């Protein structure tokens, strides 16, 4: 058990996979000698060479297309796209081919591809700050995971690199510099299992990726005022671990969904619906980005994203809402 940086945890999982699986390769912009934008591939090029750790041109569509084709034909590629914004250039091979290959070929073709996307805002402006997890998790055939901490970054990447179909691995600009404990022995974190990051009894906050730390910070603020929040880290968005979320909400009776992306047709909407479909009405509220582009302007960026204070306020007003009785029938 050592303390490592998030980027090191990602790197270790990829390195161990390339060591163990000769068909595993990495492709992306500046993933080679440079070691990746966040040093998350540092040392891999030196260890595995240019045939297995490949710098690509700035051509996201072809990068993912090559990854899909290579995976379908027997390799296990990890394709890295440094900004999730640019997966918009690569959705055709991912959605129209990879997600459908197994179904449309009657199981003849599998696409064991990992597409690593870095989401979130950190001062880089309208085209370098977006979070599209809700889109990707809605695509049948895609699995989507999004670690919030070092241990999950490692364990989920290990699982992603062993999956038999396409996996979207979402990390976050603000997570790479964070650090945490990591078990020295190789291990996986299975898909479809959320984690209780903080036990609590008054309200449930459901989040993933960087927003988990925001939720925990908010829970800290609230506990000072006697409000005890449970924080659920989804970890896996597709498949989604509804059982863990429902167990928490049936205990607390209040659900706040938290995401860095847009609220409209977002993750929170899906979770709120599924939880209530299973548990019946509970107090629910959703928090996400303001419905506007995310500027690199520090004032505007800060104002457009959820922070601990806003999360705490959202929980307070959620707990203020008492009336969840049905309206009069017409």
């Amino acid at each position, binding site marked *: 058990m050592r303390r490592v940086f998030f980027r090191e945890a990602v790197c270790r999982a990829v390195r161990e996979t390339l060591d163990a699986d000769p068909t595993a390769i990495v492709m992306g912009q500046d993933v080679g000698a440079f070691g990746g934008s966040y040093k998350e591939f540092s040392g891999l090029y030196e260890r595995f060479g240019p045939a297995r750790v490949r710098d690509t041109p700035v051509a996201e569509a*072809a990068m993912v*297309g090559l990854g899909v*084709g290579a995976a379908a034909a027997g390799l296990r590629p990890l394709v890295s796209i440094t900004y999730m914004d640019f997966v918009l250039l690569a959705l055709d*091979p991912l959605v*129209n*081919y990879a997600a459908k290959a197994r179904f449309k070929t009657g199981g*003849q073709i599998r696409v064991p591809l990992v597409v690593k996307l870095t989401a979130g805002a950190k001062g880089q402006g309208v085209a370098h700050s977006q979070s599209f997890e809700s889109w990707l998790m809605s695509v049948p055939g895609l699995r989507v995971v999004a670690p919030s901490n070092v241990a999950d970054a490692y364990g989920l990447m290990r699982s992603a690199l062993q999956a038999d179909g396409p996996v979207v691995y979402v990390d976050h600009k603000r997570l790479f510099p964070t650090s945490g404990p990591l078990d020295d022995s190789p291990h996986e974190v299975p898909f479809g299992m959320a984690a209780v990051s903080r036990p609590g009894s008054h309200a449930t906050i459901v989040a993933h990726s960087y927003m988990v730390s925001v939720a925990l910070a908010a829970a800290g603020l609230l506990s000072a005022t006697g409000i005890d929040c449970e924080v659920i880290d989804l970890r896996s968005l597709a498949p989604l671990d509804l059982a863990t979320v429902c167990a928490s909400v049936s205990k607390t009776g209040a659900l706040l969904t938290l995401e860095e992306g847009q609220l409209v047709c977002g993750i929170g909407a899906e979770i709120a619906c599924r939880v209530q479909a299973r548990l019946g009405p509970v107090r629910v509220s959703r928090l996400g980005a303001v419905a506007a582009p995310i500027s690199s302007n520090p004032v505007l960026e800060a104002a457009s994203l959820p922070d601990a204070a806003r999360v705490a306020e959202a929980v307070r007003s959620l707990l203020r809402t008492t009336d969840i009785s049905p309206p009069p029938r017409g």
Partner: protein
Amino acid sequence: MTASNDIGALATMMLARALESALVARADCGFQLLSSGQEAVAVGLAAALLPHDQLLCSGRAIAPALARGLDPGAVMAELIGRVAGPCLGRGGRGHLSQPSAGFFGAHAVVAGNLSIAAGVALALQARGDGSIAVCLFGDGACGAGAVHETMNIAALWRLPLLLVCDNNLYSVSTPRSAALAPRQLSDLAAPFGIKACTVDGMDVRAVRAAAVALTDHVRTGGGPAFLECISRRFESHSTSARESRATTELAADRALDPIKRLENALHAEGALSAQTAEALHEQVRAKVAAACAFAEASPLPVPDQAFADVG
């Protein structure tokens, strides 16, 4: 390879033409993209391929699938959505696939298979057994950026990839001249240092000769190559699309029929007797009848089974 000799090529082209006629005659034919008129491109190309090579193509996939040696009955079954198809009837029109037969297959997104094929080539390169990936696409695909991104990476990484443009001069109703600026589409390969040539796609011998030369180049580590074949589409874009061409133009196109052309050549050369020809026609009729019967006998898929097989 059955098509490696002229009689075989003739037989395969006849089979594709006849199978499509049988298909469109069916009430349950539905939306289909026919190869009629363009058989020589698929058949001439396939003649240059080895068993472990992989062929990828556009949605216009019937002749390519048969040329690659897929069973006509299985192909027919897939096209009408029966479980005896290689994709269990789920892929159907535009998505024929049988990798075990070296036919990685069709993808109905125009230019969508180009980067996929480069990925397949990357996997074959890693395997190192000299197999190559071949991507067959239409002239319309040459307007898409995928051509550029794929050629650039394939050239940089010296991928064993042959790009074959089946240029039938139209994208649906849009003439190639109105959609593509290059004088020849094979010119697109030049900036990347990719070996390229353009041939008459209605002459199966010319296609085969060029395909053999370029597959050798690719197979022996020369990096990617680009082959343009000028062809003619005999039917409208799809079974559900209006015909936009003048009847005079269509008539002139049909006069170039690659099947008649090879048959006549072989007759002239004394390589094909009237009896052999009649026997061929008879064999093809029999094969198509058998294929239809086979497909007909196969059931439609069970939704719940299909829906359980995703991702």
